């Protein structure tokens, strides 16, 4: 039983990482109707950046902040010069972001090489907490807590702040919101940057768990999409629930039913798409 607990907690940790990536993607999708295939690229950019910084004796937490800010800045540039021109044009978005995946992936390979890079767990969290008769890595627990904190933050922003209300209104009626004098374009840029930043944070925090390697960006993307579809496009709450489900199934599954764990997840995704295409918490129409 204790090993199950261990797996469960680990699964939750992974789930939280997935939640952070997926939340960014789903918020961008829900607010801007933009489908960013290159979302995984934000993850690895931040992860690689943090790796380089930490390898050069920079403090982990500082590296985290720098990586997130840089990636968010990149997100702003990307939105302003590339994405903005193709609002509503799904095909162009798919192609554009597909090309970006290629560009970032190869550039990363050129700079950092194809071999696995390890980002060390920050020293202050590098210990295990005895829970019952298992020793659970504190870092993983930390991630779960961070995930919860972010969820609370998002909830608070959405329901209690004026900015959150504006964004929700912008989702429903762009013209009305801009008629109120609010620069919808700028709001969108910030939302995109926020999504990128969230992905970046998950990249840096998740790197000690997953390692950094070529192909990670598309793996992250696929996982985010699974989470998104099951949880519901545009709903970060849905992402939270489904990310945790996916994380747990994956972790528990690869220990207990390794040959079918991925199959289960994809089958679940297909099932949802058939029975309830807008996901567990998604809006009816997209």
């Amino acid at each position: 039983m204790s090993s199950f607990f261990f797996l469960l907690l680990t699964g939750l940790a992974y789930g939280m990482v997935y939640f952070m990536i997926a939340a960014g993607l789903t918020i961008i999708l829900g607010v801007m109707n933009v489908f960013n295939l290159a979302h995984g690229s934000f993850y690895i950019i931040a992860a690689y950046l943090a790796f380089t910084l930490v390898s050069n004796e920079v403090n982990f937490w500082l590296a985290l902040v720098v990586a997130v800010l840089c990636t968010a800045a990149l997100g702003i540039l990307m939105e302003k010069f590339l994405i903005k021109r193709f609002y509503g044009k799904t095909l162009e978005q798919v192609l554009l972001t597909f090309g970006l995946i290629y560009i970032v992936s190869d550039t990363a390979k050129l700079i950092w090489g194809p071999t696995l890079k390890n980002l060390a767990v920050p020293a202050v969290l590098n210990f295990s907490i005895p829970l019952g008769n298992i020793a659970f890595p504190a870092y993983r627990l930390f991630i779960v807590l961070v995930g919860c904190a972010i969820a609370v933050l998002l909830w608070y922003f959405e329901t209690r702040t004026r900015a959150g209300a504006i964004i929700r209104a912008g989702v429903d009626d762009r013209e009305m919101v801009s008629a109120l004098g609010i620069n919808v374009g700028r709001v969108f840029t910030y939302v995109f940057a926020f999504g990128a930043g969230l992905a970046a944070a998950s990249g840096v925090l998740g790197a000690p768990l997953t390692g950094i390697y070529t192909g990670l960006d598309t793996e992250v993307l696929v996982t985010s999409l699974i989470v998104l579809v099951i949880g519901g496009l545009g709903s970060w709450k849905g992402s939270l629930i489904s990310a945790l489900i996916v994380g747990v199934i994956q972790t528990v599954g690869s220990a207990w039913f390794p040959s079918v764990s991925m199959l289960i997840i994809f089958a679940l995704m297909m099932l949802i798409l058939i029975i309830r295409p807008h996901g567990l918490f998604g809006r009816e129409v997209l």
Partner: protein
Amino acid sequence: MKRSALWMCLMLIVVIVLPYTLSDFGVYLAAEIYIMAIFAMSLGFIMGYAGMVSLGHAAFFGLGAYTVAILGTYVTNMYVLILAAVVLSGLVAMLTGAVFIRTSHFYFLMITFAFGQLLYVTAWQLKRLTGGADGKSVPVEMDFGFGPITSPLAIYYVMAASFVLVLLVVRLIVNSPAGNIMRGIMENESRINFLGYNVRTYKILAYTIAGALGGFAGALYAYYNAYVSPELTHWMNSGIAMLMVIIGGVGTLIGPFIGAVVFILLKNYISTITSSWHLIMGLILVTLVLVGRGGIVHWYAYLSRKLSGLSARWRASGKHDSAEGMKSVEHTEN
């Protein structure tokens, strides 16, 4: 009408003569281009003529390829194997299409993506059947009944002939009543509905055809490559097919072929210079999207329109009544 017949003849001549101007490697590469062209055409059909954008089309390519690889252990007749591949892909397309088509464009993109990945993971996990990540070698060779086909030249002609066949079939379908209605659906779906057509039936029909053709391409690939692996169904391969359609021009018959030629030649050429062909491809892709104006075929049409407009103006400037000249310019500009 006459002009397309001319193009057809020209193409046939090039296709027949080409291998004699290329090295063995070139001939082999050309054969691959034909196969990918068929695959791209199958996607181009639903994208450009029925308005359905799928990010999981490689699923059918993989299905076709694996059918040949797996069934080939029990059956060696090429006709049977290819038929099985086509029928299975078509059937899967019909069944999944019936479910997927209910969704909006956006969800359709995602659900086809999901299905492609599902097959990828399935191919990966069912080791005993598919060889898993290691892939599976294809135990059969092409044989029309006159002996195995092994020389690069012979393989080239088989693939070339298949390509021409598929091109003609797709052309036929596009110009048929059903094909016209599919285009109508892409143009204005609700209107087609209110004209009395069952839109769903047509969409499923289009998707089934596309799936079957994709499976055909996959089957050919199995024979060509003698080896299949799960990567064949990966969504990035679907993306590459989409790329080929876009490069060549969406909504054109020959576009996907041109896109396949450009993509594969570029990939091969760039790979000899640098290992970062993804980077170059990505840059080209982004540039293409930013510049817009469709693919190569549209560029060609655009350029030829511009040229004929220029020449008309040039002719008109010599005329007395310049007003008449301007009128003829307006006509060609349209």
